[in-house]
């Protein structure tokens, strides 16, 4: 297991390194003088040079790259060209919205999908199983933003139970923050659940036909017991992979949800900064997101090694 974990860790570091070079080159090397791009057409050459010098943009690219990486490693993500705010501070504030949103959405999706998918697998070929398959199929087809708008119409406008959008910060009111997250999490979670139900269903169906489930029953487990005790652990193997892949989907979903519900999250911040040509902000935050996604996949791989002894010994 230790060798397996070390190999996966090395792979993770390699992937992060390649990603950092790629992002740096894409954004810096895309052409043109960054300082000129930031300041716009009407800027004087003196102003451009001053900005370039102040932010070290006049130094050779490799030097800039290593400065950036060194900063990232020590927690310094750079400063905004326009407002001179620390990117780290900007990001931290935004993460207090985005992380609860994404994580709760994923967890809600799993909480719905695992029992419903298992139930659908057990009742395959019956009317209730078919109905569930149909509902999840519809759920997959529904765009996230539309789900958000519908929920907001129902609970926000019609019933008036929850805010239709906007954000109350945790420091102002924890209850208020939770209230402003309920509908976004619900929309994200429901859409995640619709996708995951189908994977859970097929994973459980596959496991149900395995000989070892029959052995478990031959040794004294009831059908349901065998499915829950032996089946789900085996079905979780493909699911872990799927959930890892869904993380990328989840981040895409948060961009839309944050926009629909006007939440000051990380995704919206990146969008705004791309529009404002805040090179450093975009570069550092995109890098953070990439580290997060690759990190999740590292965790998935390690989890896979823990769950499946065959993976540990063969790789």
């Amino acid at each position, binding site marked *: 297991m230790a060798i397996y974990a070390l190999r996966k860790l090395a792979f993770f570091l390699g992937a992060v390194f390649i990603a950092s070079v790629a992002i740096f080159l894409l954004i810096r090397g895309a052409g043109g003088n960054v300082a000129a791009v930031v300041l716009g057409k009407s800027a004087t050459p003196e102003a451009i040079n001053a900005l370039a010098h102040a932010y070290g943009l006049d130094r050779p690219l490799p030097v800039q790259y290593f400065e950036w990486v060194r900063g990232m490693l020590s927690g310094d993500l750079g400063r905004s060209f326009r407002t001179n705010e620390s990117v780290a501070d900007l990001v931290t504030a935004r993460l207090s919205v985005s992380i609860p949103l994404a994580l709760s959405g994923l967890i809600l999706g799993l909480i719905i999908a695992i029992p419903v998918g298992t139930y659908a697998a057990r009742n395959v070929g019956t009317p209730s199983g078919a109905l569930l398959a149909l509902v999840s199929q519809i759920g997959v087809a529904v765009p996230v933003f539309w789900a958000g708008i519908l929920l907001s119409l129902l609970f926000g406008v019609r019933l008036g139970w929850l805010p239709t959008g906007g954000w109350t910060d945790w420091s102002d009111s924890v209850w208020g923050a939770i209230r402003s997250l309920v509908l976004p999490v619900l929309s994200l979670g429901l859409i995640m659940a619709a996708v995951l139900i189908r994977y859970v269903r097929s994973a459980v169906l596959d496991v149900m036909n395995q000989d*070892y489930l*029959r*052995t478990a029953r*031959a*040794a*004294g487990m*009831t059908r349901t017991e065998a499915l829950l005790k032996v089946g789900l652990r085996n079905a979780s193997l493909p699911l872990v992979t799927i959930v890892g892949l869904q993380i990328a989907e989840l981040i895409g979903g948060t961009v839309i949800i944050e926009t629909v519900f006007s939440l000051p999250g990380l995704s919206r911040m990146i969008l705004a900064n791309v529009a404002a040509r805040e090179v450093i902000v975009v570069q550092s935050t995109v890098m953070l997101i990439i580290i997060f996604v690759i990190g999740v996949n590292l965790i998935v791989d390690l989890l896979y090694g823990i769950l499946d*002894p065959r993976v540990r010994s063969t790789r």
Partner: protein
Amino acid sequence: MTGTQLNALEVKNLVVHNTALTAVRGLDFTLPAGGRMGLVGESGSGKTLTALALMGLLPMGWQANGTVHHDGVDLIAQSDRALSSRRGRTISMVFQDPLSSLDPVRRIGVQVSSVIRRHTNVGKREAESQTIELFRQMSLPRPEQLMRAYPHEISGGQRQRIMIAMALACYPQLIIADEPTTALDVTVQKQVLRILNAAVKDRGCALMMITHDLPIIAAMCDTVAVMYAGRIVEMGPVAEVFRNPRHHYTKGLLDSQPTMDNIALDGSSRLASIPGMVPPLHSLPAGCAFHPRCAAATEACMTRVPPLDDGSRRTACWHPIEASVAMVTA
């Protein structure tokens, strides 16, 4: 206590069917306590479905009718919950493929000792030491280390011995072995059978051995039932049935067994085979299902199903082979 206690299994008119097909068409037999019965037949004759019906483990869509008396209850009438308390305790089964039949993600020791804990009141440590003792009885090497191994880490023969240990863990009255050596290398088949044989003998439990391998039946069983297209066509003591088969299908099976006598070394094999094929379940012929392949078939065979007669030697044939006519080959 009651008369049924003397028998490990009393099967009456067992029928196994799904919505479209009937795969087992009325089995009647009795397996006495501690008895050893072989069930032979080609693929598709209904052997495995019979075994799964006895265990209450039929695949989805299949249903069993009739009565199966075992340990004072009718297994067919039991709920899944009631049956589950018997499976692994009074009636056990060893499956064909030991690799796919063991849970790939749980340690072997846990898989076996959890069966003991489920059916008896012993604690974790006691169940584990019983498991190690079982492994020792199965001649498994280094039983203590094996407890912590996963199924993919050990050999096929060892896996099947683990399956046997699991089936025997709670001293069942009956163990059903469905082709237990088919998936194994020829070199370890004998060893596994020897261990199964010894363990069954030690415990005095009844054995139902399902196979298409006649020498295995000859070596391990005292009675044999020959199945064809969902029915028993011949049944009796192994030595008698193999020496003097009465049903033409049984004779055909015996004649198609390779032995040193009928395999020619120059390649011109003199091995006999039964003409034709096993009929598919959805278009079984009327009368005796074997009649299209039978040389002795007459008008009667095409219209009326021959009943399985009673007694120690049972045959379902309108024109059974007379003992004097049969070739003594065994």
